[in-house]
């Protein structure tokens, strides 16, 4: 069993030109736990996730993974590409827009990282990739290219691609937005297993039920600020901040039937 990673975010600022997308974010993501990020559209959830694996360069503050600063060697000194790559090998990510490689089949999409990054042989990689695809219920579409897959199937390939790499930290950006309820249940099961195997997870989601079921802690963001971090129970049932209660009210209204 691998060692799950811990993430420490301190005073993080991120600007897009004059627009401040993240404001002084302070957040600890404990190892082996699931942290869910919730909040309104445009509040900075994807941006925060992208700062954690340094796909987005942050402007101030720190992101540490297992005590190691990511992206910088010291103040103002960029980390070498090699070292950054090394760190990213233990971080997986599922993108909100999937970002599948259109020239490869579903199977090849998943196997690619295993071959290039993990150094597996082709046959081994294909076996492992097929297994990952089976976990997300795609055994009969392995040979399809992304253009020949439905929205939910594409999303599942993206998930399989990430879990096949067995990272120690996994970043999910709305991993279930295109999935139907049954599949969400299955994916949730897969994620719970992963968490049990010692993987740290940060999950952006709009589905409160999902957060309630899998999260160890929930962080609520609004307009670039981290409003609250607490247990799912505290956030979802006894929110301390009126912004959160407002947010949840509409959710309950529309999901009851």
């Amino acid at each position: 069993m691998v060692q799950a990673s811990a993430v420490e975010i301190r005073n993080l600022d991120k600007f897009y030109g004059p627009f401040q997308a993240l404001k002084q974010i302070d957040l600890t993501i404990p190892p082996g736990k699931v942290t869910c990020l919730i909040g309104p559209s445009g509040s900075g959830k994807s941006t925060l996730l992208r700062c954690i694996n340094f796909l987005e360069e942050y402007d101030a503050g720190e992101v540490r993974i297992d005590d190691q600063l990511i992206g910088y060697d010291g103040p103002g000194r960029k980390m070498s590409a090699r070292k950054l790559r090394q760190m990213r090998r233990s971080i997986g990510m599922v993108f909100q827009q999937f970002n599948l490689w259109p020239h490869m089949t579903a199977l090849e999409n998943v196997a690619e990282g295993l071959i290039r990054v993990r150094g597996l042989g082709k046959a081994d990689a294909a076996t492992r990739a097929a297994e990952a695809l089976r976990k997300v219920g795609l055994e009969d579409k392995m040979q399809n290219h992304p253009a020949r897959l439905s929205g939910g199937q594409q999303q599942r390939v993206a998930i399989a691609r990430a879990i096949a790499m067995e990272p120690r930290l996994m970043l999910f950006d709305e991993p279930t937005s295109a999935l139907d309820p049954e599949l969400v249940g299955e994916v949730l099961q897969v994620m719970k297993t992963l968490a049990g195997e010692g993987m740290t997870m940060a999950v952006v989601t709009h589905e409160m039920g999902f957060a309630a079921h899998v999260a160890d802690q929930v962080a609520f963001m609004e307009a670039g600020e981290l409003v609250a971090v607490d247990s799912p129970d505290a956030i979802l049932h006894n929110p301390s901040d009126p912004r959160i209660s407002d947010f949840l009210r509409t959710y309950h209204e529309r999901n009851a039937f």
Partner: protein
Amino acid sequence: MELSVFQDYGPMLLRGFGVTIFCWLAGTVLGMLLGLLVALAQRYGPRPLRWLLQVYIEVIRGTPFLVQLFVLYYGGPLIGLRLDALPAGLLGLTVYGSPYFAEIFRSGFNAVPIGQIEAARAIGMAEPSIVRRILLPLGLVSALPALVNFSIILTKETVILSIITVPELMYQVQRMSTETFRYLEANLVLALFFWGLVETISRAGRRLETRITRHLIERV
């Protein structure tokens, strides 16, 4: 190196450069338009037309400009087509460039994600509007460097116009070198003028490129 030759030949060289620039500009603009028409006809036209255009593309693209020009200018009169040097040169350059431009446009169009065209179709936009507003601007993103590339290549094809006595730069430079034996100076002039022209074109291309790709850095 003797700069005195430029005193005698300078004006002539400049005039030649003027002719070169004129031919290049006219040939590129007309060739690009013709090429665009061909590419669009290939995309939307009926099957027999597409097939015919494919033959046009392969034949014009596959044969040397020198030969085309030679046939047009020296062979034309045999079938009663008698053109003066400059019109023949411009016609030749336009026709020669068109299949290359057509292929570049085609590859640009292919790079436009189908979803963006479907979105336009779904609201009932007419195909000409789709071409103008969606296909062309987005297709240009990937096609622009290749368009600039080929325009640059066309600058150099203009020197071939000298074989049909269009008094462009090469014609004048050759004249200077055969009359004065100043080969080094002659080549220098040629290189400098062309470098200047090409630099101008590529700079303009880069500027245009940054303009049109400014907003496209996609994110997750």
